[in-house]
């Protein structure tokens, strides 16, 4: 579907990649597109570091008595896997890469509202990442990514402060990104681009940014207080002096629950873009999807206590949080219905981005409904802290968010690089990932329900078969992730030239050359049509 024969050579035109060369032009850039690529490189690196920890975990769990490492090391492995994947991969992933690249383009602007703050956010991220990586190299941390006191404040002999400091600093990167997006979306839309003509990806990022702004500071102060408590041996979480460890959990989860929506809203935005383009249809229920993003952002702040049903929290608070947790599922379900209705009677093409999108819809739904099981107080008593929870969130984060992230990377890859990737390899990789993912994580639902606890280095022998299945799946999944790494990098040099709109998609970003010039548009576009104005004749 490329217009490669018409498009002149990539180097005969000036665009954001070739406008200047040299390391300084990258490290001191204020161009949102280059900053997006800086993030893409760092986030990819962190993904594979966190993935390495996961590989080690799954290798270790082949044997009921533990095949690979000492229990103390195992504790460090799952902690580092969680910390890196949550704070250094999932939270920044789509906003900092696809968001940074696309937000100004989708609203018809030349750049974000505060380009230098954008660059600062990347440096802040890097400082946080380097601190956390040093914590790993220095011996790791074993508190879990949740850093619960009193273990983390009083008893752990590992590098808690260093790792927590890395997370604390990375949080500011998240805040700066969200802040930039909110101001840009409010104040810099092109003429004619009313709120309800915006792409749903923008609505999703706007809702995400609200969560980043209002939630991240709370985990920042919580980690700071935890650090003070650990350093100075006094504080508010230590029960020995009248403190309350559950208070830590309240403050921690006040952010960390909305954080999971930071991790899933942008992928949902990507899916809205993919589903419309690859069914050649307007999105079904645009305003429902837009408002559901906002509702998720708001309601997500009201449900955090569902992580604490068995912690000693008041039963009455648990009741309230349980009801609200059921409520928060509704806007997500609305999205799934609307995407499905968009697919209905659409002209579907099964390009790699669409394969990822379809995988998302199925796997996210499975992960989502198991969330409802967990929201039920009585069921949660049985499955809390088991592999059921692990399966639930991996279905959403890996089966959902990572698949959408890959779908988005593939979809916008021609725009970002000006090149096409090899289609057959892309579809093959999507299939390998889908199979590997399900083999890895479906057995974990069963393990959890049968009672296998999470964060344990050993397990009863009767669970071995399911664990081995899961580890086998993980090896397939790992291979699946390596394949795009290879062909995407290959395509940057050897892929066919893409042209401005290889997918014939609707959206302002497709109305400019690939790769775009530094200022994005020759002149500021004027918007006259609704979003996703795919007509039936085009199909």
């Amino acid at each position, binding site marked *: 579907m490329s217009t490669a024969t018409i498009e002149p050579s990539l180097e005969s035109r000036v665009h954001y990649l070739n406008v200047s060369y040299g390391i300084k032009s990258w490290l001191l850039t204020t161009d949102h597109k280059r900053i997006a690529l800086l993030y893409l490189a760092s986030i990819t690196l962190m993904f594979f570091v966190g993935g390495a920890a996961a590989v080690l975990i799954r290798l270790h769990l082949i044997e009921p008595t533990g095949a690979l490492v000492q229990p103390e090391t195992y504790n460090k492995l799952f902690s580092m896997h969680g910390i890196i994947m949550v704070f250094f991969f999932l939270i920044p992933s789509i906003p900092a890469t696809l968001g940074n690249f696309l937000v*100004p383009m989708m609203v018809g*602007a*030349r*750049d*974000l*509202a*505060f*380009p230098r703050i954008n660059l600062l956010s990347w440096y802040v991220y890097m400082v946080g990442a380097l601190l956390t990586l040093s914590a790993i190299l220095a011996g790791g941390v074993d508190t879990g990514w949740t850093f619960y006191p009193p273990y983390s404040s009083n008893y752990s002999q590992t590098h808690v402060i260093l790792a927590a400091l890395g997370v604390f600093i990375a949080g500011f990167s998240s*805040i700066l990104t969200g*802040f930039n997006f*909110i*101001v*840009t979306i*409010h*104040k*810099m839309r092109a003429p004619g681009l009313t709120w309800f003509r915006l792409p749903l990806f923008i609505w999703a990022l706007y809702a995400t940014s609200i969560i980043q*702004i*209002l*939630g*991240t*500071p*709370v985990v*920042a*102060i*919580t980690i*700071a*207080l935890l650090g*003070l408590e650990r350093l*100075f*041996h*006094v*504080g*508010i979480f230590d029960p020995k*002096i*009248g*403190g*309350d460890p559950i*208070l830590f959990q*309240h*403050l921690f989860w*006040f952010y960390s629950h909305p954080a999971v929506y930071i991790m899933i809203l942008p992928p949902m935005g990507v899916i809205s873009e993919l589903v419309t383009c690859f069914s050649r249809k307007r999105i079904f229920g645009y305003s429902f999807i837009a408002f559901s993003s906002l509702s998720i952002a708001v309601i997500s702040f009201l449900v955090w206590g569902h992580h604490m049903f068995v912690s000693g929290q008041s039963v009455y608070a648990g009741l309230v949080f349980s009801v609200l947790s059921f409520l928060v599922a509704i806007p997500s379900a609305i999205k799934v219905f609307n995407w499905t209705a968009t697919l209905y009677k659409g002209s579907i093409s099964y390009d790699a981005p669409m394969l990822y999108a379809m995988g998302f819809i199925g796997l996210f739904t499975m992960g989502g409904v198991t969330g409802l099981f967990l929201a039920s107080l009585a069921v949660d008593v049985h499955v809390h802290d088991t592999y059921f929870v692990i399966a639930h969130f991996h279905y959403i984060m890996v089966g959902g968010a990572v698949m959408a992230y890959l779908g988005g990377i593939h979809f916008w890859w021609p725009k970002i690089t000006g090149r096409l990737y090899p289609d057959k390899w892309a579809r093959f990789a999507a299939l390998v990932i889908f199979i590997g993912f399900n083999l890895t994580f479906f057995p974990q639902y069963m393990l959890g329900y049968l009672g296998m606890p999470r964060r344990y280095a050993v397990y009863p022998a009767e669970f071995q078969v399911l664990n081995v299945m899961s580890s086998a799946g993980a090896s397939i999944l790992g291979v699946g992730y390596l394949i795009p790494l290879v062909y995407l990098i290959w395509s940057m040099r050897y892929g066919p030239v893409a042209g401005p709109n290889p997918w014939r998609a609707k959206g302002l970003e497709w109305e400019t050359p690939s790769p775009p010039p530094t*200022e994005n548009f020759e002149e*500021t576009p004027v918007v006259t049509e609704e979003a996703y104005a795919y007509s039936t004749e085009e199909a």
Partner: protein
Amino acid sequence: MADHPAQAVQVHALAHQFDDLDQQHEASNFGMWIFLATEIMFFGGMFAGYTIFRHEYFTSFAAGSHLLNWRIGATNTAVLICSSLTMALAVHAAQLGKRMQLVTFLILTIVLGLAFIGIKLTFEWSRDWNEYLVPGQLVLGHAFAPQGEILKQLQEAHASLPKVEMFMFFYFAMTGFHALHMVVGVGLLLALTIMAWQGRFSPQRFNPVEGIGLYWHFVDIVWIFLFPLLYLIGGIS
């Protein structure tokens, strides 16, 4: 385009991503408010912890509060309110393009901010240190250990020492983070003063003055809540 000097300032003042100065000004202002929303939540975490433990340990918290010098607290409150006035007058001067007035009010604000910190360090925190009221083992051998008159006062109030120590933790954490924000604010104001002295601001372009003014007022608001909540628990005599 740059034939008239004032226009030259205007053109130079417009960042490339914005279409006009209005848009730039609105974006800058709105952006600062978003940042302040994050600060509300940052301090809010500490206020939440404080609220919970004050509810649970009111007697000890009141006893701890009586250890603080409310006169100094009230003086500092007045100092900060004055600094908010001078900051507002600085923005006013910037709006009208009055360079010397702007510089003067910025300097006054800095002086008042430094006075606040100076009073805190000299009359409050150093005394707390000398009286072994600083919580935790900040320095080995200087742990929280109220003595003499202070210990008697706490015992008469039926306070529990670990919980008084927790109150002092909140006191130092909340006023500490507040003071940190003030120091950053003073630094920003210094930069602003230099820029103002160099004539970098005009009625068309004074966003940084306004933005940092908003930040400064916010830090004042945090103290407006800290004063009664920390110094006036359980009444004063």
